[in-house]
């Protein structure tokens, strides 16, 4: 296939972008829509001290959970870690710092980073210490709001149904979730696609993430874990 924009590459080539201490943002919700091949690549490379930003910490053996359970993260910014007991244990043991953000506000903070907005105002969790602590507030029209700052990352990793050679992306069903937001928020964005098609093969009205936000596209080797619902 022609590769006119040089974006289509191999998992070996993107391996260099994953380094100790980096901030890594990932698409996915409970592991659904997280890029398995890239996660395995990071795991195998032995990268440590990651700051992970994403909806949740997956399950211990699913999605980004694989990095968390293997103690590769020093910090997580997420809305939920309940489905990954290892994350809870590491937090309790002081081995993992966790910053919780309400789910929709977390998504908006990622989107804000992705579209170059420094912060949004929010009244979600206003009176909750865990949400509000250390956050500035702002009085607007007589009501107080939290200032929720934008999130970006050194690298964003995204899971797509199809990508074309320019990096235009469409997603599959509920595997879309945070992926289009994460795709915009990376200083460098790498898409793992189930299928890579020539430029022009995607309907321009149907494209969810324009390729301008995408730096590299790699082919997915498919999910490398058993889903929780497959275990019974």
């Amino acid at each position: 296939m022609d590769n006119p924009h040089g974006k289509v590459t191999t998992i070996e080539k993107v391996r260099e972008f994953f380094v100790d201490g980096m901030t890594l943002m990932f698409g996915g919700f409970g592991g659904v829509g997280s890029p398995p091949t890239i996660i395995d690549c990071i795991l195998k490379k032995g990268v440590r001290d990651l700051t992970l930003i994403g909806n949740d910490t997956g399950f211990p053996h699913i999605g980004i959970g694989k990095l968390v359970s293997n103690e590769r993260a020093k910090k997580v910014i997420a809305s939920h870690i309940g489905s990954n007991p290892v994350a809870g244990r590491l937090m309790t043991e002081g081995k993992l710092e966790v910053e919780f953000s309400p789910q929709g506000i977390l998504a908006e903070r990622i989107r804000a980073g992705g579209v170059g907005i420094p912060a949004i105002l929010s009244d979600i969790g206003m009176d909750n210490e865990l949400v509000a602590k250390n956050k500035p507030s702002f009085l607007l029209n007589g009501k107080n709001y939290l200032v929720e700052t934008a999130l970006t990352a050194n690298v964003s990793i995204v899971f797509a149904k199809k990508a074309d050679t320019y990096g235009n992306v469409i997603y599959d069903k509920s595997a879309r979730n945070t992926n289009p937001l994460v795709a915009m928020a990376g200083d460098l964005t790498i898409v793992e696609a189930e299928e890579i098609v020539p430029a022009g093969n995607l309907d321009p009205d149907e494209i969810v993430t324009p390729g301008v936000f995408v730096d590299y596209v790699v082919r997915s080797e498919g999910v490398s874990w058993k889903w929780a619902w497959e275990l019974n």
Partner: protein
Amino acid sequence: MGLGIELRNRIAKRASEEIKNGMVVNLGIGIPSLVPNFLSANLNVMFHAENGILGMGPSPEKGEEDENLCNAGGFPITLISAGSYCDSCTSFGMIRRGRVDLTILGSLQVSEKGDLANWIVPGKKIPGMGGAMELAQKAKKVIVVMNHCDKNGEPKIVSDCTLPLTSSGCVHMIITEMGVFEIKESRLWLMELFHPFEINDIFAKTGCEVQIDSTLRKLYD
């Protein structure tokens, strides 16, 4: 020590009656997930999931699961006609914009002022709030379905929550195995009493003042 399936079903069935034609509804896990079993088939209801689904249908047959079509808990579901997928921002935009008509969720405690405490059990690990705060604060109506008492027999409906709040003053209705309550002007009103309980049982098992609504119905189904 949870409720038996019969009492859980009673609660879910009663909650299902609050779902009207055309509503957009978000269901929590546990008893709320039983609610769709009792819905009339001729109602047009759109079930919303935080992970970007509007129009969730029932679980697929075994072997028919699609790993890219799961609910917010990560379990396979289906999509009904006119359903759609969206990103997480849009999904929560629906909630904050007031387009989600009803959320039905479980809770650890609820106060007579409608304060909801359903996300942290002291001494246990903190799981994170997920989407609970947005739903509690912004859904047009919030119904809590839960056991009337905790596993130690202590009231879960109280004057003031002792557990960390998810959101204050957000609950409109509580349904337990004993009856149906509404929160109106920061007071708890008993609206329906379920067999075999009597009003005195309610007084005994509830941790705050209970007002008896003039329209109180005693249901002995």
